[in-house]
Structure formats: structure tokens, C-alpha cells
């Protein structure tokens, strides 16, 4: 479309300037585009220093006649492509390959309450474009931000389809209040679920990082703003794009290297039992006798299951601690046959089909701009009963009703069914497959087998799984659970209907003035049905149970804006914006649970006849309103200044304290426009920018915190009477948390825009933190805390973002991108009560001078060479480095910050002969993480039935004394003994995507009336390199504890797909 439009333009420009001249030559050639090798029409070819020029025709051919014989250079230019100067060198035929210049297309960027151009923008922002988004196969677009924008740190705690990533922009902005950025979709603040946005409908995601960029979102912009802009029509002709892809999802991060050999597990455990006796004074003979009898006896600390057959009268494990060589795997007690199963393979290796189809039709006419789309996604999860099915439709239309009036609406409707079994991210849960497959010893069967070895079925035809008490053996680990079957029989469904809409009218009563009314109406309805089966598992006793919930969320945004733009004396450009905005959010919940299900298969309340149903309903309302103004000025496109002011009120605060004042000031200098830089030809653009501003945060959380200022009570029934108890301690004085941001940066484009980038320094001080001050328990406040504004935080650091075309010759283009961010997070002030000593927890400390992710645990001092016990330093914080093997005597110590020193992403793209290839990575360096799962897997033998990491082979023995793995001894308590021993590097390198595509030459597809056909294969989230196989540091920012960090959450998913994109 663009090409044809350009033909029209070039005709206008060049008709009439093709005069014949004497002493001339003729030059012809073909101009093609580098992406697809297709002829480019409408390209301007001009002889340098003259007015002689021509434009290429529909076949990309140009014909320059009348070129002076002494002409040296041709200038070939085309909007959106890099301008080239080509030496003529006496040639009469010169073919040119044009390289697209994405930077030029991107001149316009989306900013708060409008758009700006890249050169005049005074703030800091990073943009992810549709091309980058389409390389990722993510159901939730927040996951596509990983590694893409400097300053943006992402973690994905769960790979469950549809789950949002956690985003931190330029550090961790608060202690207790929200640290999440504000999402704004097409200018409307968005509290719906990001999963309801089809990534295919998104034109750009712009991350506003500094105060100049986002202070106008004063009320809620303190942690950055992510602007999502959906697509619009382009070009006169309707453009129809059909995209289909099919693929497979599997587990991206494996288990730890845990023991897989049942014999090795038995031998190791036997040794732990034996050692438990000899290390505590027993004779060797007694110790063997004890280990022999205790090995299979769960009441004596043993494993329960015997899965080897040993000849009658022979020992199971010999005095050499080796399994009897005559033992054979598999054991029958006459009723059941026991043989271990590979739980990992059984649970995660099922193949599945991921399918995604998208169609869009878009275009423009004189008065209408339209974009319609429909999409379908079926993304199965990697465990039974999990997945996402999404139907989405969007209609973005605007209409120029009158010369002075444009109206429009962006309406997106999404219906999706997210099946997300509960507990898959819960540490220690017997329902969590990810936890269990790491932790279950390799000796335990998953199925109950008949004596003949066949897997048992019950009389309903259901395969019988071993719950640890289903046979004549008792399982020591995770008694009474087998999530493999409960996940198959239980049903977890959440069906969402989301309507995200913006309705607008733009009036232009006089030139330069626009009055805009935007009404955003976002509705989310979510119906949850959980059915807990009555055949197996925890709900047999209650005869099945059901949880049904309906949640409705309605957000209304009203914006009334006046914008006036005027230029005085050709060089003074002014733009002034004044606006009123309000936001109302209503959240309504209705839920019920009951048990005794008549039909075992229907998860609705009327099917549940239990006598004590539990029914709840409640409504919460949140509102903000504000007035805002902005003035922008530039002098001749060279010096820029902007200032903004916003006054906001939040319903979370008492009426005396609810108004806050926010704003920003910014300056920019486009240095390349100065005369003194003109001679330096390799500098295409150089801009220096500085900004300072103040933003607010009111978000302490949901529930009671929507009315954070007020004391709150909850009624109940006590023996038939009304009873009321206080549930929340409010604080009338509570007001805005404010963040004060400074940004100093340089944007540059060098070497004919082949190298572009940004380098920035930022400093964000958050003051008057919304802070839940721990109150002494003896004060008796509910929750033992009180909200107040106290304390301060500082996040400061550097960002760099580089994009470069490394090589281009017209046929081949190779480009690369890199970004890196370094920041430090420091608590600079706390409440006077805790300022001196900090706030100490069982694994972390918050104190002035430290970060939010400072670890506070005992300091591990290695393993005693003489006893094999773990050693700890007694009290390092007070200089006492005496060694002790008594964990309870050792004091917790400051082990420092754990946030990474640097994080970011990099990637490279190659386009050649119709092929396109891209690869994208993200990384993090210099941080640390507590590996709680590894800690559990390195137990001393006291956790019977829990698997071991293979590193346990290096445990201390009298012969192996130089080791950092303590002795095996089932009486040594290693349960949740947090120490620096398990604090490991959180460095990672993540391969986020690889895409290889091929665009079929146009002349081949034209015959079948297709304007473009591309086929591709794409791999998403292909793997991560980390300190330990199985550890995924992308799930956490840092720190952690025995039960909160490690490898026990729904693993990231790896997706490999093949697809085809057709454009008509």
C-alpha cells in the first residue's frame, strides 16, 4: 500500500523535471527491497548536486536520462529506507537494494495523552513493536517484554498459560505498596487481565520510564507506565492478513539432577540410618541391625516401600552398603506388585498441540480508518487439566463525521477459559506436580499394580494410583496424596468475558485546538468452577466438593482534554494540554462452596447438597480523579522544554489527605541541529535530555486497603448474636507515596543511522513510603501492623540500549540489538522504631543502607573435617567468627544484597534472499538467590522418602573429609535450616526466541492473488542456563527462603511452532 502511495507522490514530484540535456548519459536499473528482494516502486533516484532525478516504476525500474557525463554520485532515497549514495563510476546500469530503516518509520511515538516524535520527546521511553511481539508465542503479552527494553526487569513465577509476568521498571519502588507499573491501553488505564489482549492486535508497547514521560499519570505512574496501543488501518486498500501456526508445548526447565536409580537411593538411605546409630555411639553391629529393620518401617523413620525382590534369607543391603547383587527390580507381596515409576516422564512428557489462528482486515478511506480482527488460541499446559483457550475479536474504527468532528471506538472482546489447577506454585503442597517430581524418591510407584504386575483399575474403570496408603506399604513421603490422578479427576475452570472499550470524540473548533472526550469502559466477568472429585484424594470424606465464584469488575474512565498547538514566528512551537480525568473501579465477588455432590461430575452448587454451604459476596469500590496540564515548547526544533502538573485524589485516603500534587519538568537539546555539529557527518542525530518529576502511588493492595485510612470491622454470628471484631487498623493521616525521578540521557543515531541508541542515568527516590509499620503484638492491632507514610528508598543506575546494522549490501542485512541495565536499590530511611536495628525476618533484613532484597541468615562455615557436621559462624555481625555445629546457637547474619548487578537482553536478525532469521536472549548477572529446593534435596537422611540431589554422593565420610556436604545421618536435622550454604548465583542466560522465516517471492504468489506469503518456524522460551540445572532464576528477583524460592512452581513452557502468514 505504502509503495503505491509513494508512486503517486513521486509522479507529482518528478514529472516535468526530466529535461533532455546535452553531453549526457542514461542510467537505468532496478531497485529492490532487502527484506524480500521484491522490486520497490516509487524510489527517488537523484543525481547528486542536480535536480535531475527519476522514480522507479511498479517493477522497480528507473530510467535516468540526461545525466551529465561528469556526474559522480546517485542519491537513492525512499521513505522508510536508508538513503544511499552510490558512486556512478561510469556505469550505465546500477541496481540498488534498499535497506529499510525502522528508525525513520518510528518517528512518531506514543506518549502520555498523545503522541510525540522521537526527536522532540524529552522523556525516557522504550518501545516494543508488533514485529518483535510477533516473534514471541506468548498468550500474555507482558511476557514478551523480557529482555526487550532497557530498564525493564521481568520475572515469570509461573508458566501456567495466561499468567502475567511481574514487571519492575527501574528498580523496586516500594516496600509495602505496589511495585507494578500502570498499564494503559489506547490511553485508558487498564485493570483487566493482560491475557485478554491478543498480542496480534498490539501495534506497540511503549514503556514510559521517567517522570517527564509518565508524570501525567501522576496518580498511579510512580512505578512506570506501559502504554499498549492497538492497531489501526494503514493504506487505502483493505489489507487482509491471515496467520496460522501449529506447535507443541513442553517443559522448558527440567528437574534438578536428582537420583533416578532406586538402588542408589536405598543404599544412601540405608547408610543414613546406619550412621544415625554409629555417629551416636552404637556399635557397628547394632547399627546394621537397626538399619535393616528400620529401612522399610515408616514408624521407625524408614521408607515403607520395598521394590526389589531379594532371594529368601538374604539381606537387602549388605554390610558394604550395596544392594544385594542378586536383587531384582520389582516385588510382589501376593496382593500387589511394586515397581517404581518415573513420575517426571509420566507427568510431563505428554505431547500436545498448540494452535493459533488470527485474521485481520484493515484499511482507510477518506473518512474512515478501520481495523477488525479475530483470533483463536488453544494453548495446552504441560500438566493435566491446565491450559488456555481464547477467542478474541477487536474492532477499531474512527470516522471523520464533520470537518471539525472525529468519532471513534476501539472495542475488544475476549472470551477465554483458563484451566489452572490450584497449588501448582505452592511449596510443599502434595497437589503440586512440580514440587513432587523433584522431591519424591525414585523408589515409589505412581500406580497400584496387581500381583501379576498389571496396573489396577477400579470398578469405575479409573486407573488406580498409589496414594501412599493404597497398598500394603506406607509411603514415607507425601502420605495420602497422588496429584497425578486428582489433577485428572478434578476440574479447574475460569471463564472470562472481557470487554475493553474506548469511545471517543475529537472536536477541532479552530485550527490548532482539539477537544477530546474519551470514555473507557472495561468490563471483566469471570466465572470460576472448581470441582474436587469424590473418588480419590482429599474430598472423599466430604463426598466431593465444589467452589463456584462469579467476579465482576467494571472500570469507567472519563477524560476531557483540551489541546492547543501553535507556532509563532515560525520558530516558537507551543503545545498546551489541560484535562480532567476520573477513574471508577467497582469489583464484585460472589462465591460459594459446598460438598456432597450428587453427580460426581458436575461442579455447580445445586448439585451439592451438604448442609453447611459457605456463601460470600462483597463489593469494593475504588476511585481516583485528577486535573492535569502540560506545556511543551520548542525553539526551532532544536531546544525543547516541557512541564506538566497533575493534581489527583484517591479514595484510598481520608478526605482531608487525599489530594496530591505531581508534575515534571524536562529539557532537551537536539545537538545535531547546531551548526558546529554539521561538519561531523557521521552523526545523524544527537540529543541530550534532562528531566525531573514527582509521581504518586496509592496502592497498598486490595481488600481492606481500598479504604486504607479507616479502622475496619467484620461481623459474624456468635451463638446467634451479632458479633463484630476489628480486622484492620487504619490511619487517617495516610496519604500519597511519592517518587522523585531524575533522568539524564543521550539519544543518538550514527553512521547513517546504522547505529542508534540511548544511554541514560536515572535516580528515583521514593519518599513517604506507604508502609505497613509492624506494631508490637502487645498493641493488639489486627495483623500487628499499621499503615503510615514513613521511610524512603532510592533506585539509581544506568541503562544502555543499542541497535545496529552490522552488515548490509542490499541483499543481506544483518542487525543486532543489545540492552543492559545496572541499578542499585537502597533503603535510605525507615520508621524511627526500626531505624537503628532494621526489620529482621527469618530470612531477610530491611535496614537503612541495605536493599529490599538483603538476606539475613546464618553464615555457613563449611563442614567439620572431624565430625562431618555443618558448621556455622556464631555471630559474624558482632565479629564473633567462632565455629559452632549447633544451628540454634548461631545468630543470623547480614549476607548482603541479592539483586543482580546487570540485566538485559540481546539478539540478532539476519535477512537475506527472502529468508529472515532472528534470535533473542535475555540475561542477568551478579545477583543471588536462595535455592530452597536444593536445600530440601540435600537433606541428611532425616527426610525419609524425599529424593536427593546427586551432589549428596559427595557427603562427608571419614574417608572424604574435604567436602562442603555434611555427613549422612538420619538423626541430624537438616529441615529448613537456612544458611548462606544455599545462597547461589542467580546469573542466567535465557534463549527467549528463535524464528526462521521465508517469504515466497512475490512473482510466484501474485498469480494466486496473494500479495505476500511467509512461512516460518518459531521456538519460544527454548532454555535457560543457570547455576544449577533445574533452577530457573527468571522466577525470582532475588533473596528467598527455604519455602519461597527454588524449583517448585509451574515450569516455564517451551513452545515450538510452524506457521504461515498470508497477506491479501
Amino acid at each position, binding site marked *: 500500500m505504502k509503495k503505491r502511495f509513494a508512486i503517486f507522490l513521486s509522479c507529482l514530484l518528478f514529472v516535468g523535471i526530466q529535461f533532455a540535456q546535452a553531453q549526457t548519459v542514461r542510467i537505468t536499473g532496478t531497485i529492490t527491497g532487502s527484506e524480500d528482494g521484491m522490486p520497490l516502486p516509487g524510489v527517488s533516484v537523484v543525481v547528486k548536486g542536480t535536480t535531475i532525478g527519476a522514480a522507479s516504476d511498479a517493477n522497480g525500474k528507473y530510467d535516468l536520462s540526461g545525466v551529465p557525463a561528469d556526474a559522480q554520485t546517485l542519491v537513492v532515497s525512499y521513505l522508510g529506507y536508508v538513503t544511499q549514495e552510490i558512486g556512478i563510476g561510469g556505469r550505465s546500469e546500477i541496481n540498488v537494494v534498499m535497506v529499510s530503516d525502522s528508525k525513520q518509520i518510528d518517528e512518531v511515538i506514543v506518549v502520555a495523552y498523545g503522541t510525540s516524535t522521537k526527536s522532540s520527546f524529552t522523556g525516557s521511553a522504550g518501545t516494543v513493536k508488533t514485529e518483535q511481539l510477533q516473534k514471541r508465542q506468548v498468550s500474555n503479552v507482558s511476557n514478551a517484554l523480557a529482555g526487550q527494553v532497557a530498564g525493564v526487569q521481568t520475572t515469570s513465577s509461573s508458566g501456567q498459560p495466561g499468567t502475567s509476568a511481574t514487571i519492575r521498571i527501574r528498580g523496586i519502588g516500594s516496600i509495602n505498596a505496589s511495585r507494578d507499573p500502570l498499564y494503559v491501553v489506547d490511553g485508558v488505564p487498564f485493570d483487566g487481565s493482560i491475557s485478554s489482549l491478543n498480542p496480534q492486535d498490539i501495534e506497540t508497547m511503549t514503556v514510559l520510564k521517567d517522570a517527564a514521560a509518565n508524570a501525567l499519570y501522576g496518580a498511579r505512574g510512580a512505578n512506570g507506565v506501559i502504554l499498549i496501543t492497538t492497531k489501526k488501518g494503514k493504506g487505502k486498500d483493505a489489507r487482509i492478513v491471515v496467520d496460522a501456526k501449529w506447535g507443541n508445548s513442553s517443559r522448558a526447565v527440567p528437574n534438578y539432577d536428582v537420583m533416578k536409580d532406586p538402588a542408589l537411593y536405598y543404599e544412601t538411605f540405608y547408610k543414613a540410618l546406619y550412621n544415625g546409630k554409629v555417629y551416636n555411639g552404637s556399635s557397628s553391629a547394632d547399627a546394621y541391625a537397626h538399619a535393616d529393620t528400620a529401612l522399610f518401617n515408616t514408624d521407625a523413620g524408614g521408607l515403607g516401600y520395598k521394590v526389589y525382590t531379594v532371594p529368601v534369607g538374604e539381606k537387602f543391603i549388605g554390610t558394604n552398603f550395596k544392594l544385594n547383587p542378586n536383587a531384582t527390580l520389582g516385588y510382589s507381596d501376593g496382593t500387589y506388585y511394586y515397581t517404581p515409576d518415573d513420575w517426571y516422564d509420566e507427568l510431563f512428557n505428554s505431547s500436545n498441540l498448540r494452535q493459533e489462528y488470527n485474521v485481520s482486515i484493515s484499511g482507510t478511506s477518506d473518512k474512515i480508518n478501520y481495523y477488525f480482527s479475530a483470533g483463536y488460541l488453544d494453548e495446552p499446559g504441560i500438566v493435566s487439566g491446565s491450559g488456555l483457550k481464547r477467542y478474541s475479536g477487536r474492532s477499531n474504527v474512527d470516522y471523520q463525521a464533520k470537518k*471539525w*468532528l472525529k468519532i471513534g471506538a476501539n472495542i475488544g472482546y475476549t472470551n477465554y477459559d483458563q484451566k489452572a489447577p490450584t497449588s501448582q506454585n505452592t511449596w510443599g503442597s*502434595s497437589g503440586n506436580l512440580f514440587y513432587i517430581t523433584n522431591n519424591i524418591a525414585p523408589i515409589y510407584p505412581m500406580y497400584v499394580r496387581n500381583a501379576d504386575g498389571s496396573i489396577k483399575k477400579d*470398578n469405575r474403570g479409573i486407573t488406580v494410583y498409589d*496414594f501412599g*496408603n*493404597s497398598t500394603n506399604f506406607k509411603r*514415607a513421603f507425601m*502420605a*495420602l496424596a497422588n496429584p497425578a490422578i486428582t489433577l485428572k479427576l478434578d476440574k479447574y475452570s475460569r471463564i472470562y468475558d472481557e470487554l475493553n472499550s474506548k469511545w471517543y470524540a475529537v472536536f477541532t*473548533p479552530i485550527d490548532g485546538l482539539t*477537544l477530546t*472526550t474519551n*470514555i473507557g469502559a472495561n468490563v471483566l466477568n469471570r466465572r470460576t468452577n472448581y470441582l474436587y472429585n469424590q473418588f*480419590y484424594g482429599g*474430598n*472423599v*470424606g466430604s463426598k466431593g466438593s465444589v467452589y463456584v465464584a462469579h467476579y465482576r469488575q467494571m472500570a469507567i474512565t*472519563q477524560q*476531557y482534554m483540551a489541546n492547543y498547538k501553535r507556532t509563532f514566528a515560525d520558530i516558537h512551537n507551543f503545545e498546551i494540554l489541560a484535562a*480532567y480525568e476520573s477513574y471508577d473501579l467497582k469489583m464484585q465477588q460472589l462465591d460459594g462452596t459446598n460438598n456432597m455432590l450428587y453427580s460426581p461430575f458436575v461442579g455447580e452448587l445445586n448439585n451439592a447438597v451438604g*448442609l*453447611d454451604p*459457605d456463601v460470600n*459476596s*462483597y463489593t*469494593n*469500590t475504588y*476511585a481516583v480523579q485528577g486535573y492535569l496540564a502540560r506545556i511543551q515548547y520548542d525553539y526551532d526544533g532544536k531546544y525543547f522544554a516541557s512541564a506538566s502538573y497533575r493534581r489527583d*485524589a484517591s*479514595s484510598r485516603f481520608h478526605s482531608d489527605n487525599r489530594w496530591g500534587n505531581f508534575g515534571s519538568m524536562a529539557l532537551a537539546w537536539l545537538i545535531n541541529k547546531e551548526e558546529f555539529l554539521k561538519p561531523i557527518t557521521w552523526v545523524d542525530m544527537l540529543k541530550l535530555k534532562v528531566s525531573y518529576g514527582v509521581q504518586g502511588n496509592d496502592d497498598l493492595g486490595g481488600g*481492606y486497603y*481500598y*479504604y486504607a485510612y479507616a*479502622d*475496619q*470491622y*467484620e*461481623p*459474624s*454470628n*456468635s*451463638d*446467634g*448474636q*451479632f*458479633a*463484630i*471484631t*476489628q*480486622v*484492620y487498623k487504619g490511619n487517617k493521616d495516610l496519604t500519597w507515596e511519592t517518587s522523585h525521578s531524575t533522568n539524564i540521557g543521550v539519544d543518538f543515531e550514527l553512521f547513517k543511522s546504522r547505529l542508534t541508541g540511548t544511554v541514560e542515568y536515572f535516580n528515583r527516590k521514593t519518599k513517604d513510603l506507604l508502609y505497613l509499620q509492624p506494631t*508490637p*503484638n502487645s*498493641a*493488639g*492491632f*489486627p495483623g500487628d501492623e499499621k499503615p503510615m507514610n514513613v521511610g524512603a528508598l532510592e533506585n539509581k543506575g544506568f541503562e544502555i540500549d543499542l541497535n545496529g546494522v552490522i552488515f548490509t549490501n542490499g541483499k543481506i542485512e544483518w542487525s543486532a540489538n543489545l540492552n543492559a541495565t545496572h541499578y542499585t536499590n537502597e533503603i535510605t530511611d525507615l520508621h524511627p*522504631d526500626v531505624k537503628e536495628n532494621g526489620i529482621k525476618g*527469618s530470612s531477610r533484613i530491611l535496614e537503612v543502607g541495605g536493599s529490599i532484597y538483603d538476606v539475613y541468615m546464618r553464615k555457613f562455615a563449611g563442614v567439620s573435617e572431624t565430625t562431618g557436621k555443618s558448621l556455622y559462624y556464631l555471630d559474624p555481625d558482632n565479629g564473633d567468627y567462632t565455629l559452632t555445629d549447633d544451628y540454634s546457637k548461631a545468630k543470623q547474619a547480614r549476607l548482603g544484597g541479592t539483586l543482580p548487578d546487570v540485566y538485559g537482553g540481546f539478539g540478532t536478525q539476519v535477512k537475506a534472499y527472502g529468508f529472515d532469521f532472528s534470535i533473542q536472549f535475555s540475561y542477568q548477572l551478579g545477583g543471588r538467590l536462595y535455592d530452597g529446593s536444593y536445600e530440601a534435596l540435600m537433606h541428611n537422611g532425616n527426610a525419609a522418602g524425599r529424593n536427593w540431589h546427586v551432589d549428596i554422593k559427595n557427603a562427608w565420610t571419614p574417608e572424604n573429609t574435604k567436602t562442603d556436604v555434611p555427613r549422612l545421618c538420619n538423626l541430624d536435622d537438616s529441615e529448613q535450616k537456612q544458611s548462606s550454604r544455599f545462597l547461589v548465583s542467580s546469573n542466567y542466560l535465557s534463549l527467549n526466541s528463535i524464528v526462521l522465516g521465508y517469504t515466497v517471492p512475490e512473482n510466484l504468489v501474485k498469480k494466486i492473488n496473494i500479495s505476500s506469503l511467509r512461512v516460518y518456524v518459531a521456538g519460544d522460551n527454548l532454555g535457560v542456563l543457570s547455576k544449577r540445572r533445574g533452577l530457573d532464576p527468571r522466577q525470582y528477583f532475588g533473596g528467598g527462603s527455604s519455602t519461597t524460592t527454588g524449583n517448585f512452581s509451574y515450569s516455564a513452557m517451551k513452545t515450538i511452532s510452524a506457521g504461515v502468514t498470508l497477506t491479501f
Partner: protein
Amino acid sequence: MKLNIRTWLISISVVLVGATGCTDLDTYPEGESILQDQKEDIAKASPDRIAADLSGMFAYLGKQYCVFGSGRSRDDDFGYPAVCLSQDMNGPDVFSPDAGYNWFSTCSEYDDRSNTYANPYMRWSIFYTQAKMANDIIKSIPETVTDKTLLAYKGQAYAIRAFDYLSIAPYYQFKYKGNEDKPCVPIVTEDETIDVTNNPRATVRAVYELIMSDLNKAIALLDGYARTSKNEVDQKVAYGLRARANLYMENWLEAANDAEKALEGYEPASRNDVSKPAFNDAKASNWMWAIIISPANVPDAYPSWPAKISSFSGDSYTCAVGMYKVINNLLFNQIPTSDVRKGWWVDASLQSPNLAGVTWTYVDENSATVTLTGNEIPPAIIPDVKVAFLPYTNVKFAQYDYPENATNAGDCV
């Protein structure tokens, strides 16, 4: 120009329409909680709700998630019964196996002496939270009030505050006699000048002085007050609490006198009453004071005392995984067979005469209805519901509608 005027009119009217739909910033919760000023409005509209603060103070002790809140939903956060169970598990008489579902192993292993654990936090916090409610009631009824009912409310608040300090003082210092001047626990009263953030431990003597003074006031204020529910404190309960305080202080004679006054009019349970699983109903003649825990107070099955202590629950880890609460056989063997209490536990061969009238019906995996009677119950395995009792498992306590009932409600002494 005409065009412009019309455009202006339309533009302005749109803005005005919008502005009239202006946002109300005074938002209120509906259902999830009640704000302080809403509460005051409610009290004006329905004056009987004033007593709700008093009931709330009593109900708190049996409220699920009363300490850590439903957000953290710990299964051991079920109020005073959890405190009692913790204290039992600290002693040598009661124990329970631990297969990962024993929420009180910290007490059996004395890990509850470490201040980073949830269990001691809960056992400390619950009483100060209730004392704060008592302080608020005391503060809200000034000296000048003469209304009998209000004064009785105040008397109950004093008694509750005394109960709270009586419940913690013995656990943070050795016994009263001989240790009177050692530090005990911080005192927080209705006195607003107390700085709770800088409030050192008071001496044992000072704590007991407060307890005694509160109970004396309570006894005076509750004279003639007839309570409406056994969850309230009347004068006899206050005497009972003072008897306990005197016991702790080793004032034996005073303790006996107070106990006698407390017991006046109560009939002890008969041998028959306690020769079956019981101890779940405040209506029993021998119950003087109770936390009333109705099914409505137990929306979740696991955080409840029956789920942890009763051996008859239809939905608990105690039964399903066998975390039964078991008596020490050294103690069991010392109970003479003539003592009715011997039947409160099954013996080494899983028998107890107290099970005679108990039946437990369930549907097995072959869809057949099975009824267990009496001593068939202890060894029986009901898949996913109960495992066999251990030797010496208690059959003393039962939830409402035992066995098999999955709601896990029951009053607590």
C-alpha cells in the same frame, strides 16, 4: 463562524455532561468489612448492634485465621483451641506423629521457643489482640455511666483482660512465688499514655496486681448480671478466673473459696455423660464458659480444633493421615480401670468401651454402604478419610454430629 459556535456548544456540553457524572471519592466497602464511620451510623440505626462489640470480643477466640488473617490462611490459626493444643503438645502427656501434616510439631520439638516461628507468635498475639478489644470497651464506658447493662459489659471486659494476662503470664516467667520481681510481659491497658513501642516487660507482681484488680472490678460490676449466652462472662465465671489467679499465686484458701462460688449451681457431668465421645456442646450442664463454634463459624474444615484433635472427623488430616492425638502410655497405664477417664483413649489393642454407641457409615470404593460399629471403628481404614487409630488414640473429643461429619464445628471450653 456559525460552525464554530455550534462546535463550541457541542464540545462544552459534552464536557459538562461528563463532569456531572463526576466521580465520588467517598467509597465504602460493601460486605467485606465495615468502616468505623459506617459502624457508627449502623449503631444509630440499630442500637442493638452495640452489644456486637462485646460478642465480637468473645467470638475472637474461636475465629478462623484470627491472628494471621485469611490471606495467609494457616491451618493452625484457629484461636484459643490452638493455644491449648500447643500447650498440651509442649507437655509429656500428649503426642502425635508427624508425616508432614502435623501443624504442632514445633511445640513437640520445643521449636516454639524461637521467636521466628508462627506458633509462639500466634500464642502471644491472640491475647493482646483480645485485650485490646477489652481495653476499647473499657475506654468507651466512662466512670459516669450508670446503666446496669453497660456496666456489666465493662465488667466482662475487665474479666477478659484478666483472662488474657492469665493466659500468657505463666509462659514468660517462672511461677509467681519467688519470682515476683522478675520481668514478665508488657502491660497494655486502656490508658492511652502507654507507648506500646517502648513498653518494657512489667514484673510478675505488677501483672498479677492488674489481673487481681481487674477481676475484683469485674466481680463487683457483674453482680446480678444474667448473661444471654455461655460465651459471656458472668460473676461466676469471674470468680472462676479469680480462683485460677489465686491458684497461680498459691493463695490456696482464696482459690478454694472463689472456686466454690464459681461452681455454685453447676452440676458436674455424670459418668454416663463422659462415657462417650463428647466435649463439644456448651449446653452441657457442667460447662461454665465456652467459645461457641457453630458450623457458620467454620467455613474452612481444616483450621478448627476438631480437625486437629477429634479422631472422628470426616475431613481432616488428623484422621486421613493418622495425625491422631495420643496419650502417653506411661500415663494411660496409671489410670485405674475404675476411672471413667480411662475410656477416653483406646488401649494398646485399639479398644475403648466409650465407642459402644458410635456408628460410622461410609460408601466404599465398590459403592457399597458400610457401617462400622463400636470397636470396629479404630482399626478400620476408610480410603482418603481415615486410617487406623494408633494405640492410645483419644476418643474423648468429637465435633458436632460426629463421626464422619466434615464440617468440624464444636464448642470449646
